[in-house]
């Protein structure tokens, strides 16, 4: 049956007059927009926080130095990346894009622009925040039991990768052997060979370094050594071992061999 204009109008107006359909109140749409905006904000903040946390843990575990050790370092870094956190961040950016695409400023332009903008904002902001004391403060507070919900999150992230060791050089018996006091308070022997990548200025007693190499009991055959800022370290234990980091520089002077030559 073909509906005429009058039929259609009559049917619609009858439905409206008999209240079989009612207007949704304006507050509903305000609330919906507010929810979208809140969702965008929450997704943005969450993804920035996760990215900053990833950056912070990679730096404090010494993993950011690995690419400087060439292809083996890059491969090792790939194996240690927090893939779950990275996937979560990507999911947050996708969620952010889905919510943002409800707004004309976003949907009128190709998605790739808003995706790139989202990724840049998240990565840059996350990197900047990682350089503040936010995560260090949060870790200390959680370690002191003042942020119970977050403690497991930080504890899981602050682990010691097996082939990355951070420590302070306490002794160098010769050009090829150095003793290292790790932040866990262990003493290890670092063997330096012709293949070991070391800084141009060499390595000396008192230097805090990150050593890349697989440990075998308490010996590490170093593939690479890089300086490391001890002030950026967060310890899983309450105190730094005596002789580690800054303490080492203040210990009484011993015979300090010249820095190791570059091979």
């Amino acid at each position: 049956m073909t509906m005429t204009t009058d039929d259609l109008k009559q049917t619609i107006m009858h439905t409206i007059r008999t209240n079989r359909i009612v207007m949704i109140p304006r507050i509903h749409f305000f609330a919906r927009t507010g929810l979208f905006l809140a969702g965008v904000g929450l997704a943005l903040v969450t993804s920035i926080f996760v990215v900053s946390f990833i950056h912070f843990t990679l730096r404090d575990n010494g993993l950011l130095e690995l690419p400087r050790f060439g292809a083996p370092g890059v491969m090792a870094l790939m194996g240690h990346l927090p893939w779950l956190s990275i996937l979560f961040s990507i999911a947050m950016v996708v969620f952010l894009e889905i919510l943002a695409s409800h707004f004309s400023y976003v949907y009128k332009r190709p998605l790739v622009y808003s995706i790139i903008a989202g990724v840049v904002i998240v990565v840059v902001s996350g990197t900047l925040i990682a350089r503040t004391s936010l995560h260090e403060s949060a870790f200390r507070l959680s370690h002191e039991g003042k942020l119970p919900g977050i403690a497991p999150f930080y504890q899981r992230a602050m682990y010691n990768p097996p082939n990355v060791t951070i420590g302070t050089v306490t002794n160098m018996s010769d050009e090829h052997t150095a003793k290292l006091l790790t932040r866990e308070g262990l003493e290890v022997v670092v063997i330096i060979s012709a293949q070991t990548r070391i800084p141009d200025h060499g390595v000396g007693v008192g230097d805090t370094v990150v050593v890349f190499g697989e440990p075998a009991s308490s010996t590490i055959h170093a593939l690479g050594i890089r300086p490391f800022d001890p002030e950026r370290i967060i310890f899983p234990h309450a105190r730094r071992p005596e002789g580690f980091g800054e303490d080492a520089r203040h210990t009484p002077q011993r015979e300090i061999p010249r820095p190791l030559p570059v091979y």
Partner: protein
Amino acid sequence: MAGELESDEMVAARVQSGEREAFGILVERYEKKLTRYADRFLYDYEDRRDAVQDVFLRAYERIQSFRTSERFSPWIYRVAHNVFVNLIRKRGRERIAYVDLDTLFPGGIPDDEGRQFVVPDMERHLAKLDPKYREVVVLFYYENKSYEDISDILHIPISTVGVRLARARKALGTLIDDYDN
């Protein structure tokens, strides 16, 4: 009559303020347009006339979401697009993706290819086009919507509107040539 002098936006504002009967003016103004849109986009879907009725009912229900500072036409066409696409998905005869790759990257708005189509040729082959191309053809050629309006109706980038139109023209040209041969 006051209704004839008023813009669609003014009438919509009256409806929003509680004058339910004013909605009848909007029905009169848009019934033919939306029926034409439905007839060409939904072609032989049996319940396309019911879909037009659903569009108006849904528009009334959601009239408070319309911002009177903007134009009413793209808004109600957006409501119609949502109703029609839901119908197509529900019937399952044609596939409409939730996300299209052609919205991902920018595409240059192509120059007019110069080929003109006569209405009977387009009518004959419109139903054979993919829904996403058919819809832009209907909105551009039959409803005389601008690229920007189509972007607002379909919530796709303006450049994608141009890309889809170009592809639709190409597909139509092929269909027409095959038919003529």
